[in-house]
């Protein structure tokens, strides 16, 4: 501790009051972009290099927070004296240059003091748009078609169109998507809901996206000259439906269309989605359509808060089926919802409407691994009614609290 104070004095920085003997990340100065921060980590099994790496990562994390952070939090407070909170704090500033000023070990703790010398020069909007707070899991099912005879030149469009959308969604961040074979039934909404929930449960997805190719036929323009010369156009019309996997409910259903002046077939030999396909006139039009549809799907899904499922319960620890790959971080807080009764709510006709649920506890993440995370409850899970199948959610979406969402 003394060495830290000597160090601060030596460099003419104002002395911060530190009342803890255990090392802790401290922002010591913020003058014209320069930040000095101390990071700490525990030395496990005498492994100094690992401890140094962790302490450095801790220092960089805290330095980024000092340079700019986005805080989102929501507290539910009820008359029953229950305060539940969900919260996430994300660094916004990217550090492009730093140097290690000092490092030492005291007892079981390794300390690293760094100085941030350079940061990425970006506007606030650029910084904020780069943040993908969490990645939601989405399952895309095979698309259906009203008239399959209209697609002799693009036989694999049913599977390749959704795959192309999911690839673009993943590339732009914020989504973890997977493709599922099989189509949703079109005749009954109730059976559609059932299958959506089954797919979501099987794939661990929060959302299920389906599609229907409404039209791909050739049309002749109305008019005397057009009818004589037979100027054909081809219309692509696709409806994309986004479902909530937890309840099976339809979130949004949007249709997109593209008109192609020259309706020459793309050619059976050209694989849908390949470079050769997209270089054709049909491919070019579909490329733009896919781009617009991708942005729309993203806009709808980003308005719904992130949710993960509880897959295991041990005392007051719960295991969630989302982890570091989903961008969850240690320290994140989510609210756990449990079903009140074991029986689902059904319509008079017997169709399932979902489970009645209630918020039961706040969970704070204490460990994240690539595909799962471990959270801590304030009490025993059984006492709180938390069990496998319960859901943990943020109470806000990554669009923030001030954005308008498409309906």
């Amino acid at each position: 501790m003394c060495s830290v104070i000597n160090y601060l004095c030596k460099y003419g920085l104002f002395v911060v009051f530190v009342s803890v003997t255990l090392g802790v990340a401290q922002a010591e100065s913020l003058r014209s972009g320069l930040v000095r921060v101390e990071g700490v980590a525990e030395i496990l099994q005498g492994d100094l290099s690992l401890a140094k790496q962790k302490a450095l990562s801790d220092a960089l994390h805290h330095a980024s927070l000092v340079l700019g952070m986005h805080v989102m939090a929501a507290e539910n407070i009820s008359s029953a004296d229950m305060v539940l909170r969900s919260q996430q704090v994300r660094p916004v500033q990217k550090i492009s240059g730093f140097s290690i000023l000092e490092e030492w070990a005291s007892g079981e703790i390794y300390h690293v003091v760094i100085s941030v010398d350079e940061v990425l020069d970006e506007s606030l909007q650029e910084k904020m748009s780069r943040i993908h707070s969490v990645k939601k899991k989405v399952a895309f099912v095979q698309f259906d078609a009203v008239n399959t005879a209209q697609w002799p030149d693009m036989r694999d469009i049913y599977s390749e169109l959704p795959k192309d959308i999911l690839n673009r969604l993943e590339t732009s961040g914020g989504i973890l998507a997977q493709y599922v074979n099989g189509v949703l039934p079109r005749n009954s909404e109730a059976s559609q809901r059932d299958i959506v929930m089954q797919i979501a449960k099987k794939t661990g997805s929060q959302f299920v996206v389906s599609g229907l190719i409404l039209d791909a036929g050739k049309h002749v323009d109305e008019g005397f000259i057009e009818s004589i010369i037979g100027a054909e156009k081809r219309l692509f019309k696709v409806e994309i439906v986004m479902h909530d996997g937890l309840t099976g409910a339809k979130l949004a259903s949007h249709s997109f269309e593209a008109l192609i002046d020259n309706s020459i077939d793309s050619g059976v030999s050209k694989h849908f989605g390949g470079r050769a396909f997209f270089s054709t006139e049909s491919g070019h039009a579909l490329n733009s359509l896919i781009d617009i549809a991708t942005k729309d799907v993203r806009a709808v899904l980003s308005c719904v808060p992130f949710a993960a499922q509880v897959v295991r319960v041990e005392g007051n620890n719960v295991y969630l089926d989302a982890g570091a790959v989903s961008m969850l971080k240690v320290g994140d807080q989510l609210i756990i919802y449990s079903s009140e009764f074991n029986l689902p709510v059904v319509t008079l006709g017997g169709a399932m409407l979902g489970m009645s649920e209630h918020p039961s506890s706040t969970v704070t993440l204490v460990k994240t691994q690539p595909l799962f995370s471990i959270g801590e409850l304030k009490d025993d899970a059984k006492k709180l009614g938390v069990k496998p199948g319960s859901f943990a959610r943020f109470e806000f979406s990554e669009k923030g609290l001030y954005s308008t969402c498409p309906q």
Partner: protein
Amino acid sequence: MNHIKTGNFSTDAKLPGRFKPVLCLVLLGGLLTGCTPPQVIVQAPQSAQMPTRSAPYGDIKLSAVGYGSSSSFEGYTAGQKRLMAMRASKLDAYRSLAEQVQGVRVNGNSTVAGAMVQIDSFRVLVDAYLRGAQVVSVTPMADGNYETTVELTLDSKFFNSAPQQYRDFVPTAIVGSNIKGAVGPGASYGTNFYYSE
């Protein structure tokens, strides 16, 4: 805001403290001059009567305290649990600071049945960007819990860059004299599928 009408003072009108000595001087001057003809008082334009707000504030230091409880996760050693508690208290302090700087949105929800409030609940929402928040102290408490204090210094640039409606409001609230509340329409909030607001 009190509007001061020259030449037509009412005893009911509450004058801001800084106008009182001026008024005394004017009255004293009037007594001393005695027989001077009455002065014609010209009604000043409304805007000229408003107190000016040119850079009335210097640096303002905001501080917030956060708490973190010791983890009971068995997979961690005692040292890791301590570090976890510190981290939790730090994040809590940042949230608390964000609430102060950006403000919160409160959604209330009451269920009334038989003229009795059955369930009364509300949600407090925070969405803020912070820069320059610094950890001032991390203090161990009983039972392995930690208390963290963070600080953020806001200078005049912060207020000057704020939209006009906030500039009018913020100083009175922070200076602490003549504190006034401000109510405005909420920004267009994102819909939360799981909650019907």
